[in-house]
């Protein structure tokens, strides 16, 4: 009868111990998640073990059960030195064991058991045994509360609150074995949380934790800020370096779950040197910090901006005015693609003989500063046939370069037409859409045009003149073709083969222009006044150029 009762009491105890173990692992691991924990009191329904609300984290529960590996008939008492190891792992892969929490059951010799147990347990009747189990339950509750309180005081708690994926994470491991305290380094502290003498043995909960956590790799001036825990003051040590006085990065709140799942066996004694954290320090402070963007900056945009920033200051304003023609890069060729087209229209028009007016028109087009000029430009474009056809005459005299537009190398063309084509690009650049007509920039543009721009050709009837123009067109055509599509180039090549056809084409276009000549005249008459002088200067320049 008495053995039966004893067995029942043992069964109870076993159950208590099992749940104490399960709750303890929950408490310890949850305290290392890096977040503040709050559980609500429940005055009505007391379903929680030991009357303390400890949430069960399923992963931890599984992990504990796996470590205990209890089969239905097994007793937890045989499995008991249960340890929860908390370790730190840096982003570099260095690892350090921080603490080991353990729950152990030591055998108890009988006479001692009688002496230390609750007074109610001395007798043998049923009431007292029941009372004892009740007392044990309450004591376990206090032990668990102590555990909850103590988990917040060890150095690992502060570290866990500061963990973030960039620097380090906190890991746990649950195992059934003697606590491996030798991994905690020299001077580790051992705290007994509680001891509970029961009929099956003395239940002891304790923690051993590392006290030597060094902040910084540089020995000298940081020595004063070495973390000391409890009563021990630590000297500089060759262990891993940790920053302690840093504000907690904001991003660590979402990390714990991933940390929970990542479960790694420790490398015993293999704790890496200070290198890892030194590197982290360097990366954060020396390089990234000065370049760190503001709070709400779009990183992608910022990077783009800086790259451009590096390029831009090298060219002072208006440096392109001084640029040598022969140094034209592919880039500038590309840029030319657009401008010659519009100029070509006019040049071709010039062929038709109405020199002065069209010259003027050209001028207006190139100024392109006011809305009227824009309008006229549009008009011209609308009136003419598509660009493709305009490019055709280019092949006439310089067929070779036009046939290979994709190569974008036109050394042959550079002698004659470069000046004009470059001018085109310059003129394009001289469009200052937002400059007021009286501004200095405008004057500069005007001056430049007057000095350098290739004048309309005097002898339009002669073959020479159109050929020059055409060559310039050819150059631009090559560029355009390269930039836009090979279709254009193919068309140009095809047209080059049939010269006569292209001549017809040209004449047809000229006719077209002629028919709309009145429009141009009207336009010119609108701008009427300053035409003659500029034409004069330009025509002289033009003679120079054509020669």
């Amino acid at each position, binding site marked *: 009868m008495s053995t039966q009762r004893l067995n029942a009491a043992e069964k109870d105890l076993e159950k208590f111990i099992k749940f104490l173990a399960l709750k303890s692992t929950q408490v310890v691991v949850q305290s290392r998640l890096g977040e503040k924990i709050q559980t609500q009191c429940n005055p*009505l329904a007391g379903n929680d073990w030991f009357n303390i609300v400890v949430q069960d984290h399923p992963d931890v529960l599984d992990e504990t059960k796996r470590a205990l590996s209890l089969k239905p008939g097994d007793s937890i008492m045989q499995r008991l030195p249960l340890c929860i190891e908390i370790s730190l792992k840096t982003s570099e892969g260095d690892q350090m064991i921080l603490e080991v929490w353990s729950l152990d059951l030591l055998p108890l010799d009988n006479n001692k058991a009688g002496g230390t147990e609750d007074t109610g347990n001395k007798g043998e009747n049923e009431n007292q045994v029941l009372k004892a189990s009740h007392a044990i339950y309450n004591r376990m509750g206090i032990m668990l509360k102590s555990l*909850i309180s103590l988990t917040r*005081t060890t150095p690992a*708690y502060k570290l866990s609150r500061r963990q973030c994926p960039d620097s380090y994470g906190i890991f746990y491991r649950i195992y059934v074995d003697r606590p491996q305290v030798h991994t905690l380094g020299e001077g580790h502290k051992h705290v007994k949380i509680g001891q509970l003498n029961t009929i099956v043995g003395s239940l002891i909960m304790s923690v051993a934790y590392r006290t030597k956590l060094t902040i910084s790799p540089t020995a000298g001036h940081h020595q004063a800020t070495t973390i000391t825990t409890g009563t021990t003051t630590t000297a500089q040590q060759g262990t891993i370096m940790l920053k302690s*006085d840093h504000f907690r990065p904001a991003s660590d709140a979402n990390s714990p779950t991933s940390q929970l799942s990542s479960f790694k066996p420790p490398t015993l004694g293999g704790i890496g040197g200070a290198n890892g954290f030194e590197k982290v320090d360097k990366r954060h402070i020396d390089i990234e910090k000065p370049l760190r963007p503001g709070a709400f900056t779009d990183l992608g945009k910022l990077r783009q901006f800086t790259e451009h920033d590096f390029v831009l200051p090298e060219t002072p304003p208006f440096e392109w005015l001084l640029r040598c023609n022969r140094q034209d890069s592919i880039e500038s060729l590309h840029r030319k693609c657009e401008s010659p087209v519009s100029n070509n229209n006019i040049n071709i028009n010039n062929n038709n003989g109405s020199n002065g007016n069209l010259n003027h028109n050209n001028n207006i087009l190139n100024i392109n500063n006011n809305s009227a000029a824009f309008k006229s430009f549009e008009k011209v474009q609308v009136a003419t046939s598509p660009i493709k056809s305009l490019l055709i005459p280019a092949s006439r005299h310089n067929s070779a370069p036009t046939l290979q537009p994709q190569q974008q190398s036109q050394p042959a063309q550079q002698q004659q037409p470069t000046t004009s084509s470059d001018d085109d690009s310059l003129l394009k650049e001289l469009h200052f859409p937002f400059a007021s007509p009286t501004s200095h920039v405008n004057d500069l543009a005007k001056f430049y045009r007057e000095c350098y721009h290739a004048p309309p050709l005097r002898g339009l009837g002669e073959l020479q003149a159109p050929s020059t123009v055409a060559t310039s067109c050819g150059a631009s055509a090559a560029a355009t073709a390269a930039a836009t599509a090979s279709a254009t180039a193919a068309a140009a090549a095809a047209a080059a083969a049939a010269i006569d056809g292209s001549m017809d084409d040209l004449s047809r276009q000229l006719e077209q222009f002629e028919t709309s000549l009145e429009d141009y005249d009207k336009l010119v008459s609108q701008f009427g006044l300053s035409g003659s002088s500029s034409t004069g200067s330009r025509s002289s320049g033009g003679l120079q150029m054509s020669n």
Partner: protein
Amino acid sequence: MNARSQVFDLTMEGRQVDEAVASIFHTVLFHRCLGKYMYTGDAQYSIGTVGYSDVDCDFIDFTYVCCTSDSLTQRVKRAINLFSEKLRSNESCGSGQISLEFFQKKKNRWLFPQESIPWEVWTVHLDLIKHENEDERQLCRENVSDMLTEKVIYITELMNRHDYVPKTPSQSELDLIFDTSFPDVQPYLFKFDYSTTGSTVPSMGNAMKKIIKETLAM
């Protein structure tokens, strides 16, 4: 009956007082709080559960645990506040003590008022210091947190000794042991006492004095 008495000596800045005292008292109270008793019969009752919260200190690098009970927190806070304001006021000499006293009541006897018998007293003795510069302050911040760590370890050690704790009474006498005024938790009856004159009279004596005074007042 002799009450167990624990005295903690702490030295810190004035602004750290509230949190330091709170961290010690809340750790004690967390251990001394039970779930609410719900009686289903005179001898039968169910016990509610106690939730806990982490509290981060602002002026100390420390986190402590307390019961998740607003009313309890408020009561502790108010008591500590009164003490800390007195301690930090200009009249104060910069030292003082506050105690958390657990007591049980004895039933009324004819002519005598209800008698309170303390069974456990936790006293925090404080000395205020001022820091000259920020380095010192930072160092002290760490020192205070180390000190508190020690204290909490010590408290838990004491709590797990098999010392006297009043037994759970029947429903009618529950109020003599527990403070049933809180809606969510049920701590043992407790009260605060403080003095800023630097007197080190144990609160047991204070309690006795009070009892005598009250008796005479009758």
